[in-house]
Every structure is written in structure tokens, then in C-alpha cells.
């Protein structure tokens, strides 16, 4: 495996936009220690390319016609292609990042990232590490913590966990018992639990609420 370190990193680029594809190929091609072994304009095309199997790192766009970046990640995994994937996209919504990481992406880069970051990311991922720029990492962490509960639902959840009835919660928040019931139903649905007791235990376990005193 000694030559492995000296051998150039073989990169496969998947992006539906030709300008991006050309630019990236040119840019990465000029880098020492890197070799663009192929470029595909869609996930489907990438899966059929023989280079996919030999590539070390795949740079993957998120939004593409046909298979999306996430779909392509899953498909690569299914096809037992071992190449490590970095998401390279213009999107940075929490959900995008979250889903990409869940699908097995090892890096997440924005297309306006400086060249140095990009090189560093490719090297890091190739070396088996993860690479997330600071703000992406922060938002990923935030997303992991967050639930879809609204602030009012969190309030209701907090009181519910203290064992209050709907009526008592309603009195405490100055809303009607019906509204509380709606909130509770919505909480149960969002947390994917079966009843209010389970909602409370799940919320505490996931740190959504704290039971002080």
C-alpha cells in the first residue's frame, strides 16, 4: 500500500451543469496528486461508468434531474462502489445536509468554497476522515438536536411531562382544552409515538425538554 500514498487521488465528478463540470475538471486536473478519472452529468450515468469502481472520491451534486445526489449515494452503496462521497452543492438547508450525512456522505462543500477548502476536503475524505466546514457542522448539529415541534408544542410537552392534564395545561397557557388536545395530538404524531406517556419519555430521552426541579 506504499504506492497508494503516492498515487494520485482518482476523482469522479457528478454534476448536471456542464459549466460546473468543465470548471471542476479543469481546476482539479491542475492539482498535483489528483486525477479526474471521469465526469458524469447524472447519477444514472455515473453508476454505469466503469471509472466509478476505480474512483477514490466522488464529488456529487445534490440537485440533479432524475436521480438526486442522495438517491445516487444510496445507489452507489447498493452497487457496492466503495468510492467516498463528498457533496458539492449550492444548497445548504439543514435538511439537505442532514439527509446527505444520513445517506453516507463524508463531506459537504458549497460550490463557492475556496479552492483550498476543496483540496483539503478531498484529501481528508480520501484519507478516511470526514470533512465539514465549521458552519455546516454547526447546522448539522443543530438539525440533529432539533425536532419539528413548535415552541408552543414544546411548552405543552414540558407541562405534559410534568404530569399535568390537558385542562391544567390549558389553564396554565391560557388556551382551551381543545387546543391543548390538538397540540398533544400533533406532538404524538411528530415524535412518532403512540401515547402521551411515551411522548414525554421520548422527549426527555432526546433532550427536547428538561425537567428542572
Amino acid at each position, binding site marked *: 500500500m506504499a504506492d497508494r500514498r503516492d498515487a494520485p487521488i482518482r476523482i469522479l465528478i457528478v454534476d448536471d*451543469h*456542464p*459549466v*460546473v*463540470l*468543465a*470548471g*471542476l475538471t*479543469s*481546476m482539479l*486536473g*491542475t*492539482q498535483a496528486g489528483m486525477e479526474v478519472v471521469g465526469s458524469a452529468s447524472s447519477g444514472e450515468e455515473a453508476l454505469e461508468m466503469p471509472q466509478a469502481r476505480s474512483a477514490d472520491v466522488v464529488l456529487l451534486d445534490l*440537485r440533479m434531474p432524475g436521480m438526486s445526489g442522495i438517491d445516487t449515494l444510496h445507489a452507489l452503496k447498493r452497487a457496492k462502489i466503495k468510492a467516498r462521497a463528498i457533496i458539492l452543492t*449550492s*444548497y445548504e438547508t439543514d435538511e439537505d445536509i442532514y439527509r446527505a450525512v444520513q445517506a453516507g456522505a463524508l463531506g459537504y462543500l*458549497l*460550490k*463557492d468554497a*475556496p*479552492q483550498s477548502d476543496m483540496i483539503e476536503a478531498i484529501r481528508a475524505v480520501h484519507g478516511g476522515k470526514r470533512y465539514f466546514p*465549521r*458552519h455546516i457542522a*454547526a*447546522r448539522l448539529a*443543530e438539525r440533529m438536536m432539533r425536532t419539528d415541534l*413548535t*415552541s*408552543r408544542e414544546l411548552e405543552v410537552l414540558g407541562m405534559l411531562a410534568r404530569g399535568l392534564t390537558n385542562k391544567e395545561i390549558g389553564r396554565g397557557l*391560557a388556551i382551551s382544552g381543545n387546543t391543548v388536545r390538538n397540540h398533544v395530538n400533533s406532538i404524538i404524531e411528530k415524535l412518532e409515538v403512540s401515547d402521551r406517556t411515551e411522548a414525554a419519555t421520548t422527549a426527555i430521552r432526546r433532550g427536547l425538554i428538561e425537567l428542572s426541579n
Partner: protein
Amino acid sequence: MSFPRLLRRRAVVALLLCLFLALGLAGLRAYLHSPGRGLPYRDSFSKGTAEEWKALGGTWELANGMMRNDSDERGAKLLSGSPYWHNYSIEADINLLGVSGDAGLVIRSRDEEEGVNSYNGYYAGLRTRDNSLVLGRAEHGWIEVTKSNPAPGGIRPFQWYHLKLMAFDCQIVAVVTAPSQGTSTSLAINDQDCVQTGRIGLRSYSSGGIWRNVVARSATHQDLAEVLRRVGNERNSESRNPVAPASSEIPSPEQQKAVPRPSANTQNIDSLLLSSFAAPAVATIRGVVVLTTPLLFVQDSTGGVSIPQPTAPPLKVGDEVEVTGEVHPGDFSSTMEHAKVQMLWARTPVPPVSVTASQASTGRYAATFVEVQGRLVGKERGPDNTLILDLDEGPQSFRAIMNPGRSDYLFSKLKPDSSLRLRGICVVDPAFTKNLTPFVLLLRSNEDLEVLAGPPWWSTGHVIVLIVASLLLALVGVSLYHRVEHWRLRAILEERERLAHEMHDTLAQSFAGIGFQLQAIRNGLPDHSSPINQQLELACNLVRHSHEEARRSIATLRSEDLESEDILVALDRCARRMVEGGSVEVVSEREGDQRTIPLRIADTLYRIGQEAVANAVRHAHPFLLTIRLTYSGDSVCLQIEDDGAGFVQRSDLQGFGIRGMRRRAQSISAAFQLQSKPDEGTRIRVEAALPPRFTLASWPKLLWKYGKEHWNNGRPARRANSHSYRG
């Protein structure tokens, strides 16, 4: 995009609904206009109902399960059925009540009015004058097509005949059978330009008559042929069978046969009042019958007289009679007892005298046929199932008594407070008035009652219903309006989303690609300090900056899900994202009782907030950024405050997207405030009025407020949240 598809689906659904509706209406119309709807028809006279019949003239009443017209009126009609009936037949048993005139059946009748021949259709009748069966067409005029003598014995009154009238295409056939004689006679015409469809009717001319077993059924060509064939046979047989002597079911009185001879020795009816109370004198009067049941009333030009239990032939309204009997004068009218009535001849019924209720109550018109108007106060059923109407005209109250039977339906439909015109015999006899009212009107049939106007619409119930209905309508209108607004806004948000995608797919990608390409060129240059390299670096930075700008535009365009999420939460997240873990502390606060904000207002507030937060983060470099959302009764206020650099407010200073924020605020009629001083931070406040909540309690208040503003300003108050996009 899902919206156009949704729209298309809605359009298709609407189109299908319209189609179904149109088909349904067409089907309903076809059903209503179908030439056989309601056929066969069989009368229910024996059950005492005849609601489906409509009278034009005459005194049509049900008696003993038969329809009876006691009036000598010429061309009295009773109509029923559908005006779209085409090929069908009508048959009935008919009994004439008078020696002059005719009675029979009408087929395919349209455009009926009151009057002798005021209809368009065919009539077949039995005429006593020349012992004939007549058949012809009435078209607001009478074209007697043909006639023949049905029986050598002649057509006699008070005898039953069976008449059948059939219309098939343009052939009209009439067949009469005298059951007692067992002979049939027929008449047929072929009218070139025939009436195609029409209703059925019973009709009499001067004679009056009784009808029973009225049946109408569809006719086919075979039926027509059958009738014609049978008639042909019977006509042949007729010549073979000698005619049996006429034997009538109702014995024909002697008077019918004798030529009536008026007595010369008659006196005026009003002179009867002068007779002595003590010794009842025998007198003879002449007059016209105005009422037959429950009491016989005879009237001449001077007044009327009531004749209880007379010895009399069957009489009809309109018969000229001579009455001889004991006179019992009353206060206002006389009574003749043990009277013998001789029928002279039939004449036109006398028209009523139009009087007011006050005039009628004087007794001047006692026992005469009058016409009075009045307002219906109440109705009740009297003894013997008679129908009693309580009426008044001004201060004068009176009663009207109707016979049961055909009037039942009309009676049940009458509404209190209706204005009525009634014709009847004015009776002041306490036997009828029971001293409750000054006079009582005895109505002959329900044609004597005419509803001039229904009760006024502004009865309490109606007004309440009206108010409730208009309130509901207003509510529906308001909710529809908001729904439409909501759809429109959805469309805008979706369009924004589409635009964001579009920009992402083209602009942002191109920037990224060009950036990479420039970087590649830079990488290829050996000398990193050459001027060309520096220029390339500048170009790289420019592209990156543009890329960032594009990404920000896209992020702004992408709609947040404000329908299910609170704007404060969304703004808070937006601010934290912009700060990106920097040293700026973001505080979000909510005050007041949270309530749903309409999507349009929420979206605008969010956009303004986003811009304000971006301004603060980018330019002011604050330590603390406070986002506050305050709900009050009918408004919501968004305040974004920072403790950053601030700036000098000048009127010409329109940067930092302030103009945009102001315009957005204007679009929802929100008050926009900006406070800023150098080194003292910036505060932006947007206060938007929320649409009033439509609850039962808030309605009167809102109406009052609206009305007050409207009248004070002399122009309609501007809506709290105008939905215009004018800047």
C-alpha cells in the same frame, strides 16, 4: 410544478360538475316536458280531492264523489294535466243539468283564459238543444267541425252518457255512449294544422253538468284504429237495434218537459219585506238562482230572498225561476217557506255587486250576491266540516263559509294576513252569523275566493330568516374571499420557489463553474505574483462574490413554510443562520395572546424581518439582536432591534433595502417605523392590523364600527388590510 396541475384538476372537476349539472337539468326538462308524464290519469273525485284541477269560470264543486258545475255560465272550464301531453284519450261519464247548452270534454288545450272559447284545443260535447254530439276546435273562437245525432231519443239532461275523446297525431275522435241505450256514436276530424299537445279539461256551456270517472291514458295508433273500427261496427248495429225509450237515472221533472209559462202576477223581492209578520201571505216572485246549497237563494234586481226546503227541480246557479210561497219578512231580507219553485229558463248567472264590508254589514245587501275584499285574520273548520274564514276590512270584521271538498286544498294554503277578494251571498241571519259578525258570506265554490296578495313579507319570522340568511351569506362571502386570496398567495409563493430553482439551476451553477475555471487557469500559471495572476484572483473573488449574492437571493426567494410554522421561529432560525455561530446573540421574544396570522401578512412580516436581520448582521455588527413579536387585540407588531453601529437617517438615504421594507409594509397597510442613530443601534417596527375575528359577539361591534367610520368620513372606511399590491 404542482400548482398548475392542481389548477388543471380543479378546472376538470369544475367542468365535469357543470356537465353533470347540465345533463341533470336537461334530463329534468325532458322529464317535465315528456308527452306521457302523469299518464294514465284517473280522477280522485270519489275521495273528495281535486287539487290538480284548475277552474276558469263556473262553480265547480265536488259533490257525492262527482265533479259538479251548477253554474249556467257559458264556457266554464276545469283543467288539469300536463301541457305536454300529446297522443292520449280522455273519457268520462257526463250528466247535463240543463235543458239548454252543452257539456263535454276538452283535449289538448293550451293558453286557457276565462271566457266562452278562450282556449286553444279541441272540445267534444253533448248538446241538448239540437240533440247532438259536437266536436270542434276552439282557438279563441269556435270552429265547429262536425256534429251528429247520437241517439234518436236525443240528448237529455239528468242522464248519464259516456264520452270518450281521443287525439292521435292530427286525428281527433269523439265517441259517446248512452249506457241506458247501449249505442255509440262517433265523430272524427282530421285537423291539418292541429294543436300538438295540451291539457285535459271539463267544460260546460250554459247547461252545467256532472262529471265522474275521468280517465286519461296514452293512445297509440292501434287504440285509434280500435276506436274507429268499433264505432264503425256499432253504427251498423245501431240501425238494427231499435232504440230503447230513454230512462234517466235522475228522473226528469215535469217542468223540464213543459214549456215554462211565467206568471204575470209576480212582485219585487224587496216588497216582500213589507208583508205582515202576523199572517204569512203567499207571494210569487221571479228571480235568478244565486246559491243552491246549503240554502236556495234567489235574487232579482231589488234584492234577494232565502228559500229553505223548497219543492223544486234540480236547480243551477243562473236559472231563472218563479217562486211561490209563504213570506216571512225579516229585518233585512225575507224568507219564503213552503215554497214551490218553477224553473223558467237558464240564463247567465248574475254578476256580484261590489261592496265594502261596512256596506255589507248594514244589511242593505242581505241575501244578495256580493263581492267583498278583506284581510284574512284566521281560519277554522266549522260544524259539518265547513271551512270558516275570519276576515276584516278596516274595523269591520266578517266571516266567510266555504263548502268542503275542492276548497280544502286552497283553504289549507291560505295564509293569515293575506288580502282576499270573496264573492258570495251576504247573509245577516243569526243562524249563520251566530251574532259574532254583522254578516256572513256564503261562498259557492273556491272560485269565489281570490287571493289578491299574500301576507306581507316582513313578518317577524321572515325578517329573522332574512337576517340570518344574509349574515350567513356574508360569512360565506368573506370566507370565500379569504380562500381565494389564500390560493393567490400560494401561487405567488410557489412561483417564487420555482424562480429560486431556476436561478439555482442556471445562474448559481454558472458562477460556480466559471469560478472553478478561473481557479484552474490560476493554478496553471507558474508565477504567483504576476499582474495577470492578481487580476485572475480579482476575477475569482468577483465571481465568488456574485455567487454568494445569487445564493442569498435564492435563499430569500425560497418560501418558508409559514403556514405551519410561526414567523418568530422562522425569523429566529434565519437570524441564527446568518450569524453562523458568531458573537452576535439572538434573542426572540413573543408577547401577547398568540393567534393565527393570515398567510399574506405573515409572509410580508417575515420578508421584512429577514431584510432587517440581514441588514443588522451585515452592516451594524451588533452584539445583541432582538426579535420581538407582539400580539395585541387586533394587530401584530414585529420589532427588530440591534445595538450595532446605527446610521444617520437622511431622507435621501434609501439604501439597506429600507425602501423595499417600506413598500412591503405598505402592501399590507402596516405602519413602518425606523429609528437609528450612529452608535446607538437601529430599531425597526412594523405593525400590521389583523383582520377582525368573526365571532357572534364581534359582529355587532364590527358593524357599528364600520358604520361609524363610513358615515363620519362620508366614504367607505379603508379596509384594515387592503390586499392591493400598490406601493
